[in-house]
């Protein structure tokens, strides 16, 4: 039952990711990315990361992707034109990618020490309380630094995107 659930979410994630790369219209790519994020949130729930799953939905799928969708709708450029690629690039691209995936898959199988299989509900340290405790005690400095980073990003985005007052 666990394996079936994982396979469903993984299949949705891979199909949406392939769709992201293959679609010509940016809006279709954006919606596929939202699909990937949703299925990843389901997978995080399986791995015991409930807070991260909720954060994925709230932050990534609910805010960052909304920003992407807005920008695409505002710019309204339409479909992408076909690229003029050299012949060897078209034929060598996909096999090289597969070689990359196979190499790392091999590493995962043979270099990683054996671990037990994932049971749903076996890891209970991912609740909001546990993460909050750690975030505000052991990782307090990175937390404060990232809030300054967000402030810088806000100021930067506003300065870059505002209308010039002549």
């Amino acid at each position, binding site marked *: 039952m*666990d*394996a079936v659930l*994982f396979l469903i979410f*993984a299949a949705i*994630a*891979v199909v949406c*990711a392939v769709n*992201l*790369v293959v679609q010509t219209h*940016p809006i279709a*790519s954006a919606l596929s990315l939202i699909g*990937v*994020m949703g299925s*990843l949130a389901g*997978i*995080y729930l*399986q*791995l*015991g*990361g409930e*807070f*991260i799953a909720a*954060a*994925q939905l709230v*932050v*990534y799928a609910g*805010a*960052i992707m909304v*920003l*992407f969708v807005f920008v695409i709708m505002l*710019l309204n*450029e339409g479909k*992408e*034109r076909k*690229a003029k690629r050299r012949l060897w690039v078209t034929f060598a691209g996909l096999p090289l990618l597969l070689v990359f*995936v196979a190499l790392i*898959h091999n590493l*995962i199988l043979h270099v*990683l020490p054996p*671990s037990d*299989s*994932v049971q749903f509900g*076996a*890891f209970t*340290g*991912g609740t909001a309380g*546990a*993460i909050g405790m*750690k*975030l505000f005690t052991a*990782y307090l400095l*990175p937390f404060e630094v*990232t809030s300054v*980073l*967000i402030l810088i*990003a806000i100021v*930067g*985005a506003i300065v*870059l*995107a505002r209308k010039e007052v002549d």
Partner: protein
Amino acid sequence: MPFPPFQMIAGVPLTWYLTLSVVLFALGVAGFLFRRNIITVFMSIELMLNAVNLSFIAFSYKLKQNDGHIFSFFVMVVAAAEAAVGLAIILTVFKNRQTLEIDEVSSLKD
């Protein structure tokens, strides 16, 4: 790895999660290298970041600690900041060049 998945194992092997992470990362790299629209390239970067998040959470399960969750949270925060500034830059590039293709924004080349 026990394959095909027809054995009645009580859980899911951890390597499956890591393989999914690699596949998503590779698809992100493919999108980054093969697409011409700046926004699609940016979205492929976000896909790569998501794949790495999945790796973090999977390893955090393996080690039974929640430090991986916290790293993942920080990755999300940095991705948010990067998306905001990156899209503002894209808007400025569009305002100045009227194009969204990365091949055409090449005035520093040659």
